[in-house]
C-alpha cells in the first residue's frame, strides 16, 4: 500500500529529533486522534535580508505515512525562504513521496499544516504581518482539530456504553 519512497523515508527519516536552537515550533494534531507532529524551524536572514529556513527538524507520533511526510516536508522546506515555504502544499509532499494511499492523505496535510503553523508562530513572535492565506490556514487547522476531538469523544462514548 505504501510506495518505495514512503518506506525509504520511514526507514531512514531525515531531520528527525528536536532542534536545540530553534526559532519557532509548529504543533499540529492531537494524541487523542493518533497523529501528532511538532516541527521546529531555525530562521536566519540571508545576504539580501530575506528570512530563510536554515535548519529544520521534527518529532512525530504517528503511522508510517505520518513519519514519512514529516521527513519529506522537512527536506522540502530546508533552505527555502519563508515566502517560498509558505507556498508548499500537502499535494507537493504527497507527490514527492510518489503518492499516498487515499486514507493517508491527511498525514501529508498534517505535515504541510505543521510547516504553516511553525511559520505562523515565527511571524507572530517577530510581530510581523501575517499573510492572508497563512492566517486562513491557521484558522482552518484550529477548526479541524476541534472537529476531530469531538468525533473521537463521540466514538469513545458510544463504545463505553
Amino acid at each position, binding site marked *: 500500500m505504501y510506495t518505495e519512497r514512503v518506506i525509504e523515508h520511514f526507514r531512514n527519516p531525515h531531520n528527525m529529533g528536536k532542534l536545540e536552537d530553534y526559532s519557532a515550533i509548529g504543533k499540529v494534531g492531537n494524541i487523542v486522534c*493518533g497523529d501528532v507532529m511538532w516541527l521546529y524551524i531555525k530562521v536566519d536572514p540571508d545576504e539580501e535580508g530575506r528570512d530563510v529556513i536554515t535548519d529544520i527538524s521534527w518529532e512525530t507520533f504517528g503511522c508510517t505515512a*505520518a513519519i514519512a511526510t514529516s521527513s519529506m516536508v522537512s527536506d522540502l522546506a530546508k533552505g527555502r525562504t519563508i515566502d517560498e515555504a509558505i507556498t508548499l502544499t500537502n499535494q507537493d509532499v504527497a507527490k514527492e513521496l510518489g503518492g499516498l494511499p487515499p486514507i493517508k492523505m491527511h498525514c501529508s496535510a498534517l505535515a504541510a499544516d505543521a510547516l504553516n503553523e511553525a511559520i505562523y508562530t515565527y511571524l507572530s513572535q517577530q510581530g510581523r504581518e501575517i499573510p492572508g492565506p497563512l492566517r486562513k490556514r491557521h484558522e482552518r487547522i484550529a477548526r479541524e482539530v476541534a472537529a476531530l476531538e469531538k468525533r473521537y469523544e463521540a466514538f469513545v462514548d458510544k463504545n463505553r456504553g
Partner: protein
Amino acid sequence: MTHPIYLDNSATTRTAPEVVEAMSPYFSTSYGNASSLHAFGREAHRAVEESRGAIAELLGAQPEEIVFTAGATEANNLAIIGSAFSSNGRKHLITTAIEHHAVLHTVEWLRTQGFDATVLDVDPTGRVDPEQVREAIRPDTLLVSVMTGNNEIGTLQPIEEIGRICRDHGVRFHTDAVQALGKVPLPVDAADLLSISAHKFHGPKGVGFLFVRKGIKLTPILHGGGHERGRRSGTENVPGIVGMAAAAKLALGEQDATSSRMRALRARMIDAVTQLRGTRLNGHREESLPHIANFSFEAIEGESLVMRLDERGIAVSTGSACSSPNLEPSHVLIAIGVPLSMAHGSLRVSTGRQTTEQEIDEFLDVLPEVVEGLRAISPFKVGE
C-alpha cells in the same frame, strides 16, 4: 534471523500441510457437486457427510447440528439474523461491547429493522459479569450473544455461567467461539448456537460452521437450492469442508499440548514486555486464550510499530486507528477503558501451533530497540 516470524495467528493461520493434503483430491479428482446423482456427486456427498460426522463427534454433537457456512462472519449472521426472524414476536437481543464486528454490526443492523438491543459493558480486563446478563434479560429477549474468547485481547468469558442463566430464563444463547477451537474446550453444552471458522486453526479460509442445537429454529439468510437441510443454500465447499474437518481433528487432538505450550510462551512475553518502561498488558493475565497477548506502548503509534517490526521480519498486528479503514481505534480497547493515547500504541501478538520459543525470544530481542527507536522521534516522552 533466517526466516520471517509469523505472530499474527488470530488474524489467520498457515494451512497445515496435512490439511492441504487432505483437501487436494477434492480439487483434482473428486471434484463433484455434492448434490449430483452420479458417482462424482456421491463421492463429494460422502466426503461432506463424513466431515460433518467427524466434526460432530469431536464436539460431542449430532451431525445434523452442524451447518456448514463460508466462515464465521456468515455463521454469526445466520445465528443472529436467523434467530431474530424466527423469534415469534420477541424483539430484544443482548450482546457485549467487545464482540467481533460480525456480531456487533449485525446487531446494529437489526436495530434498523425494528429490533432492540442491549450492549453490555465489560470490566477493565474485558470480562462480562453474568449478573449483568441476568439483569438485562427481558420477557421479549430472543437471543444472548457473548463470544467465548476475545480475538484482540484474548479474554475468556464466563460462558458456562451465562449459558446457565440463559437456559434458566428460556433465552437462546449464541457464542462466537472462533478463537477458541484447539485452544480451550468448546462450550458446546452451554450454547445453543456456536460459530467456528476453519482458518483460525490451521484450516483453509472461506469455510466455517454454525453448531445449531437440535430443536433450535433458524430462518435462513441465504435462499436457493435448500442445502444444509434448508438452513444454508449454496453448493457445498467440498475441499474446504474436508480441510476443516482435518484441521479440527489435528487441533483438538493436540489441544492440551499446544495450548500449554502457548500458555508458556504468552507468560514469557507478558513477563518480558511488562518489564519494559511505559507498557501495559491489555486483557486478563490468567483468564485468557493461550495464544493472544495484547500490549500498549506509551508515546508511540501502533501502525508504525507494526511496520518497523515487519522490516525486521516479524508479523504482528495493532488496534491503532491508523491501521483501520475508518481511522478509528479498536472498539475493544476503548471498551475496556484503555486511554485513547495508549489504544493507538497497541500491539497484538498471537502464536500458532508452529510458533517456537526461539521465535518468541527473537521477537522479544528486537522489540525494545524498535519501541525506543520510535520513541526517539516522538514528541511525547514516557511518563508524561
